[in-house]
């Protein structure tokens, strides 16, 4: 997860382009040993516990280690040991960048220093905290026109980016300059003191791939079940967001999702956040106090 943040930072600073960053993240992901597998190898967790943690990760905005400790499956010491082993086995993003020749050592060192300052990472604390992603999101996106309520939008996008790897198995990158995606618009609104409308657009190929991954079903075409799977993905994301907001005192009620008919596009005032995955672009739309269509 940390690599994703640093990668996004390098993209924002135009030190890497989108293709280079995707290449780096793909290589890093391919080399990354999963914490759950490491714990099974070490006979600290069994497969049933790992599966339970994965399920809970899809219901709560917490990472694998946090849930394992919360459930009493791992002690903090065991988690720290596993993280050390994981870190030792994975390809480091910095190493991958140097190996690829995308940046020199001096360029990388300067970027890393700036990144640490931007995200308030302390010495030795390279495992990014959730707050850091919000910092990166703020550096990339501009919701200032939404006024003080824009903070909610930054929080939402940060949460959305954290959820994509868990639900869809992708390392998302905010790719601001990407052309608009075309396809079916799926929307859902949350109502409360503030109203937040959200929506997703992706082309049929990507929709089918993401629907397969989310549902675990053998989908072969964009039919009602595939569309419903993506709608349910949006619903689960918004469910986690409402729980998170509720814990902070903001109650939001979800409305049913809508699968819009072909050709329907979001309102002009909606913020568009293009999110690049290894399989294509997801256009995410969000706006306050208006429905998306």
């Amino acid at each position, binding site marked *: 997860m940390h690599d994703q943040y640093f990668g996004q930072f390098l993209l924002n600073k135009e030190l890497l382009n989108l293709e280079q960053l995707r290449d780096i993240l793909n290589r890093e992901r391919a080399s990354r040993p999963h914490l759950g597998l490491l714990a099974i190898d070490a006979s600290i967790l069994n497969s049933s516990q790992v599966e*339970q943690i994965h*399920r809970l990760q*899809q*219901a709560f905005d917490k990472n694998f280690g946090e849930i394992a400790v919360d459930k009493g499956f791992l002690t903090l010491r065991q988690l720290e040991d596993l993280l050390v082993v994981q870190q030792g086995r994975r390809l480091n993003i910095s190493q991958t960048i140097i190996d690829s020749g995308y940046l020199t050592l001096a360029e990388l060192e300067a970027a890393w220093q700036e990144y640490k300052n931007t995200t308030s990472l302390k010495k030795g604390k390279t495992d990014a905290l959730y707050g850091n992603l919000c910092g990166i999101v703020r550096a990339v996106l501009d919701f200032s026109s939404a006024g003080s309520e824009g903070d909610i939008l930054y929080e939402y996008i940060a949460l959305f980016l954290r959820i994509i790897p868990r639900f869809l198995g992708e390392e998302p990158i905010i790719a601001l300059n990407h052309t608009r995606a075309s396809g079916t618009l799926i929307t859902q609104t949350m109502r409360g003191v503030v109203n937040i409308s959200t929506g997703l657009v992706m082309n049929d190929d990507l929709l089918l791939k993401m629907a397969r991954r989310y*549902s675990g*079903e053998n989908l072969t075409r964009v039919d*009602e*079940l595939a569309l*419903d*799977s993506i*709608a*349910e993905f949006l*619903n*689960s994301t*918004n*469910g*986690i967001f*409402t*729980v998170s907001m*509720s814990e902070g005192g903001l*109650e939001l*009620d*979800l*409305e*049913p999702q809508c699968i819009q008919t072909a050709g329907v596009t979001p309102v002009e005032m909606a913020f568009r956040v293009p999110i690049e995955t290894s399989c294509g672009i997801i256009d995410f739309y969000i706006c306050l106090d208006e429905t998306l269509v």
Partner: protein
Amino acid sequence: MCWLKQLDVLICDDSMLIRKKLKDLLEKLGCRVWEAQNGEAGLEVYQQVNPQAVFMDIVMPKVGGLDALKKIKIYDPSAKVIMLSSTGTATKLAEAIKNGAVDFIQKPYEDEQIRHALKKISVKG
């Protein structure tokens, strides 16, 4: 799982994916499964079938799950309704329990949670 055999269970959820996955699981457990896509249809099916258990989503079109729960409990005060929702806030949980839900499971559920909820109902009779 013989204690679940021939149990009539109603799934009330607007998501085709959730209905499909839950139905597959319940049928494997030996239940007879009935489906509804919203709270209004759920009440109608309930009145026809009188199932021993209901899995009820909260966010649905037409009539939502909490309103459907109230209506089902008026029709049948002994109804066993298990709320199944992605929006598991403390407020929603309290409202569901206050209105007579016997359990509240946050999506995505684990199969074991479903089995456990049905077992509780089955034991209570």
